[in-house]
């Protein structure tokens, strides 16, 4: 009996000591640092990222399947064996790696033009007062809001009149004059950023005898790193992914990866008839199915995804510094 009582009181003591710790562990000191809270955060994040990643996982899994696996009901996620034929053929159909270089060249040059023009224009708007500045800002918003289909026919005429159609000029010259894809957004990013630079820095440079252009190059540009990174990354990917203006104005002379991806079925048929001797009715793997489409899609996004992994650290860092959220 005594032993039982002793045991009881020991347990009570033990629980009494443990309980606050346990409670603290589970619910935390404040509202939001307990274990349960963290568990909930992780749970919701994982659910969201599953929903978000589902198409990608599905595409990768399907793209590694042969056509026989596709119709096999027992094969759901994991292919019966690793099957790279889809990738080999779509690699040829997308004209890789040449089209990677074409697209990278187009996107890179456009990125340069966008960065230069929006930097200069953003600086002009942020640092100088002149008549009609508000009008410029309103018109800029207008160019951002209206759909790009509003201008495409007259621009088509203008480019053919200027001899820009069918070469890179049709993409680069609008970018250089601040009228490219979503140019108003890039100008606004620089505008916000240059507004944050203290005025006294510029005044000091002015007193030392630097003109406005020298001040811009020597003082404003070196400070604009974060804004530059964001604009460069975003404009590069924007022009890489662009199919509307590239397919319209380039006349099919330059083919970017997304354009080729849109025409994958035809190209795939050609590649098959040229390189593989075989009949689709005998070898079902030669048929064009979603496995091929997914393989092509993944090939088209891989360079950008790799690039993103490489630069994401600076990208995320500079988001905090630019003050995108100022307006």
């Amino acid at each position: 009996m005594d032993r039982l009582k002793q045991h009881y009181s020991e347990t009570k003591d033990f629980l009494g000591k443990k309980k606050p710790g346990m409670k603290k562990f589970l619910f935390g000191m404040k509202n939001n640092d307990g274990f349960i809270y963290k568990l909930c955060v992780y749970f919701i994040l994982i659910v969201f990222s599953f929903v978000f990643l589902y198409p990608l996982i599905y595409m990768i899994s399907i793209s590694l399947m042969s056509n026989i696996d596709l119709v096999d009901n027992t094969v759901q996620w994991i292919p019966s064996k690793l099957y790279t034929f889809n990738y080999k053929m779509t690699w040829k159909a997308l004209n890789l790696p040449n089209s990677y270089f074409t697209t990278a060249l187009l996107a890179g040059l456009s990125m340069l033009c966008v960065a230069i023009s929006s930097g200069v224009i953003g600086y002009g708007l942020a640092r100088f007062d002149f008549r009609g500045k508000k009008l410029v800002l309103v018109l800029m918003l207008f160019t951002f809001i209206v759909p790009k289909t509003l201008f495409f026919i007259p621009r088509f005429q203008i480019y053919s009149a200027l001899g820009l159609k069918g070469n890179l000029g049709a993409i680069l010259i609008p970018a250089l004059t601040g009228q490219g894809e979503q140019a108003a957004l890039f100008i606004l990013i620089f505008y916000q950023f240059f507004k944050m630079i203290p005025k006294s820095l510029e005044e000091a440079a002015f007193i030392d005898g630097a003109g406005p252009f020298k001040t811009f190059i020597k003082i404003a540009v070196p400070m604009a790193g974060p804004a530059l990174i964001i604009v460069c990354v975003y404009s590069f990917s924007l022009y890489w992914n662009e199919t509307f203006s590239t397919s319209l104005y380039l006349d099919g002379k330059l083919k970017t990866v997304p354009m080729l991806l849109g025409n994958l079925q035809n190209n795939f048929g050609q590649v098959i008839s040229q390189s593989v001797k075989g009949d689709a009715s005998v070898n079902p793997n030669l048929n064009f199915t979603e496995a091929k489409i997914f393989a092509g899609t993944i090939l088209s996004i891989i360079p950008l995804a790799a690039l993103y992994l490489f630069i994401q650290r600076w990208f995320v860092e500079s988001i905090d510094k630019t003050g995108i959220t100022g307006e």
Partner: protein
Amino acid sequence: MIKKQKKIGKRNRFNLKRKRGLTGLCFISPWIVGFIAFVAYPLYKTIYMSFNNVFYGNETGWKYEWIGLDNFRRILFEDVDFVVEAQNFFMTTLLYVPVIIALSIIIAMLLNQKVKGTAFFRLLFFLPIIILNGELMKNMSEYGGMSININEAIVDVISMVVPNKTITLGIVLIFNTVVELLWYSAVPILIFLAALQKIDRSVYEASAIDGASSWSTFWKITLPNIYPLVSVVVIFIVVFLANFETNTINNIIMESKYDGSRREGYASALSILYSFLQIILISILYFITRSRKNSKEV
């Protein structure tokens, strides 16, 4: 003597100001040139064309035949394709925008928690900023990448948990839409996250000392701080959805240009109507979500 000096000083200051204004104009002159060449003139041309039948011959060049409002009449009262698609676009955008905003605020708040591993999730949710394009989205949705009902294993699990068949179907439907919207909400997440990180930590600490629950902290501190950005995000999303390659209206306009019975004039009229639709949409959503503080100032 003193008066004269004052006068000179004034004039100098005036000149300096004017000079700075001119330098500013110098800086934005590329934009002005671009605006006149690639926006103002095309806008005039588009409006002009929309009142004309446009022909193109190899020898004659561009030819215009004035027909008044005929193009608009055909679009609105004879042909159905644009009207139907425009209504679809209008309604889906009105429904999508609030969901995207809610989703992106939730995710941005989760990513803003001081929990290990958020860097990884951040990496994940920002991915569409870089890789999203029309072809990718089209291929993903057309071949079943975004719907779980193609995958029987998952549907089986859901129907095991929820025996009611209509609810299962509902979940499957919601899943499809949410996948699509999550892919669209990368930039909004980024904007909201940046705004959340700007809020001073000490405000939260003060409210915690005063005994505010996290629920009221969200409504009283977090939301008012990020609310001004909602209207920015609204504009961004509507523009994004309208220009996105999977949008069928853009295809209708593009194809009308090459359609023998429609040609450029008809396509111009279409794009003008489409711009009006988009401006109306943006202004509706903008005035709904405009923050109260701003409206008082204005």
